[in-house]
């Protein structure tokens, strides 16, 4: 604290968040100019480096070294391992103040309101060891609606010594009132070459494999690293991408069959169905980026993407999102998935003319939920 007053503190140029040097530089600049706001919303796809960037910001704020974050001192290491006082991660299954239930064992699918209430209480206490209390909400997409509303109060009038960092894969799906109370920072995918180079250098992945992983992860270092550690993830990803690709051209019967098949596996393995939907979601997002010609949205090497209008891609994206919501909130799985199948746009098959199967899907969009 005293160092800050004398201006002797320096902030490291490189925070080591692969592919996110621009976002890191923005935060660093805010630190240097003393214009750090009370709440940040870091958005970007899964594995893009949101959580790492949030930890780096926390480290930059509480590290005691001359050049921060040093990533070597005990404080920095404790932040990375989640053992630092004053830095609290709010995740599914985390702790709350209520003694009558335990999120770790009750299969929570959301960040619950009691966890947000705890955050509110702790945020109003003076920091324990550091100069700030920092809360990393990982991810804000998973906040229970009541929890999101409860968070608004703290976001509106945050205690002076607290900092909230919200992570979100889909910031548009958050409450607009949450978005408007945070400074938003969007993490974009990195070039495949940068990700591959980092994989080789940091994780010792052989060069050829590194490039494959970088492409498969669509420029997300975290995801690439996870796929390297758990090859089944890469397989799941490839299968799911293949599925959504063929489903987008399939007829109604084929789709409904698939919905039935998927709803059966929902009973046994929720996680893998959710993971499949996540892949579909990110695939449609990429299609949307490509169709709307957003620069930097998709690395060039990620494979051929379907031709469709932005409106169709957007409809597919929100249908997938809706189905995911329905599944989490215990709607009849087959119904939820059938609705999804009917909502997906029908894309013209490659090498086949419009027509045949490609009839307009029946409009059963349940807008009012």
């Amino acid at each position, binding site marked *: 604290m005293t160092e800050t007053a004398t201006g002797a503190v320096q902030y490291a140029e490189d925070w080591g968040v692969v592919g996110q040097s621009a976002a890191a530089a923005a935060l660093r600049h805010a630190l240097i100019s003393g214009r750090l706001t009370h709440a940040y919303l870091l958005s970007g796809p899964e594995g893009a480096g949101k959580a790492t960037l949030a930890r780096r910001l926390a480290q930059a704020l509480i590290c005691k070294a001359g050049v921060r974050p040093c990533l070597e001192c005990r404080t920095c290491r404790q932040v990375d391992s989640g053992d630092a006082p004053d830095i609290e991660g709010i995740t599914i299954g985390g*702790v709350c103040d209520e003694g009558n239930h335990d999120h770790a064992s009750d299969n929570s699918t959301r960040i619950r309101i009691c966890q947000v209430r705890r955050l*509110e209480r702790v945020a109003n206490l*003076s920091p324990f060891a550091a100069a700030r209390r920092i809360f990393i909400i990982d991810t804000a997409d998973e906040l229970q609606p009541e929890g999101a509303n409860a968070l608004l109060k703290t976001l509106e009038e945050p205690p002076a010594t607290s900092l909230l960092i919200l992570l979100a894969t889909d910031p548009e799906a958050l409450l607009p009132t949450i978005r408007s109370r945070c400074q938003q920072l969007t993490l974009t995918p990195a070039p495949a070459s940068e990700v591959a180079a980092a994989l080789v250098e940091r994780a010792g992945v052989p060069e050829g494999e590194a490039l494959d992983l970088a492409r498969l992860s669509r420029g997300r270092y975290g995801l690439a690293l996870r796929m390297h550690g758990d090859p089944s993830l890469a397989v799941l990803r490839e299968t799911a991408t293949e599925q959504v690709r063929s489903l987008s051209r399939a007829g109604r019967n084929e789709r409904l069959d698939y919905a039935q098949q998927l709803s059966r596996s929902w009973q046994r393995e929720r996680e893998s169905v959710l993971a499949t939907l996540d892949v579909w979601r990110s695939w449609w997002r990429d299609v949307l980026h490509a169709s709307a010609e957003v620069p930097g949205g998709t690395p060039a090497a990620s494979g051929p993407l379907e031709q469709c209008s932005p409106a169709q891609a957007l409809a597919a994206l929100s249908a997938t999102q809706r189905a995911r919501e329905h599944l989490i909130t215990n709607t009849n799985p087959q119904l939820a998935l059938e609705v999804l199948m009917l909502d997906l746009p029908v894309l013209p098959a490659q090498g086949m003319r419009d027509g045949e199967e490609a009839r307009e899907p029946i409009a059963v969009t349940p807008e009012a939920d």
Partner: protein
Amino acid sequence: MRLSCQQEDLHRGLSAVARAIPARSALPITQHVLLTADGDQITLSATDAETIAITYTITASIDEGGSITMPSRLLSDFVATLPRENIEMTLAERSRQVSLSCARNDASIGGMDPDDFPPIPPVDDSATISVEAARFRRALSQVVFAAAADDSRPVLTGVHFAIDGTEMRLAAADGFRLAVHTLELPDSASECSVIVPARALAELTRLLAEAEDAISVTFNAAGTQVQFDLGHAKLVAQLIQGTFPDTQRLIPEGHTSRTEVAVGEFNRETRIAQIFARDGSGIVRLVASPGEGGAPGRLTISARAEELGTNEGEIDAIVEGEEVKVAFNGRYLREVLDVLDTDRVAIETQDQPSPGVIRPLGDDSYVHVIMPMFVQW
């Protein structure tokens, strides 16, 4: 680290610091207690790395100093059941295994790196106030219970300490009631206004039970922490940030009626009424009538349980002013009567509906305000 100490001492110390350990925490190390052996004493520390930290010092004979953390629950349960004899403790530095032996029982407990233990925040010596332990404990017991239990307004979950000159005013409120206790300080202190979490003060009250002399209270210069130093034990609490409501304005000035009753009788009748009130909305009705033609005044305390039954108790009272009809939440009434240590108490009311002001007779240091409930009479 190699030392020996008395089972009773270690047991007492461990149970004192264990109160700081959270039921659940994101940080596993907070489930540990830190032992530091130096000179001729062991310092035990525990913290939730969030609100409070407690340290407790016991005497021991130390052959070799050192420090280690051990799982609090395991260690204190183990020590609690040992016979009252000498405990020998040896730490194998490399493996962080602590072997304990007492009488003919041996145990080995795995510890963790003491450097990973959250540092107990040092409270710099800015302004230290000395206050007598017994009086402070009494003041806390009359105030802490009135703090809010839910977190919807974080400042109300704490007790407001307002120090000015030789006066320390403790206040707690939860939106329905307010408790204020004013303590005289032996020495004049600089002005200060902070909010201390009620949870920390509840733990402090426990520790104060075995303190005899004056304790010192230190607020750090940054206004973030307070330390209560009891000599052998220290409690550090993180302050709640924010502004406490102006409690002076919440105490009604003047009254139209004043009812004086014996605390014991009033408390007993309130207890009975509350049994009937608990099935309803906790409403306990008070009717105070002044005596007529030389007859003494009386206070009736009644409650109804819908479709179950009714209850009415009557006690003698000195009633000044008009007849009073007022209803309170029975729990609030009982909680304040439980902490009064005078024989008699006065309830002051204004024209309804107005808050009831409760003042123990012959003790100007305490005042309690309860909001009335709206009922059909």
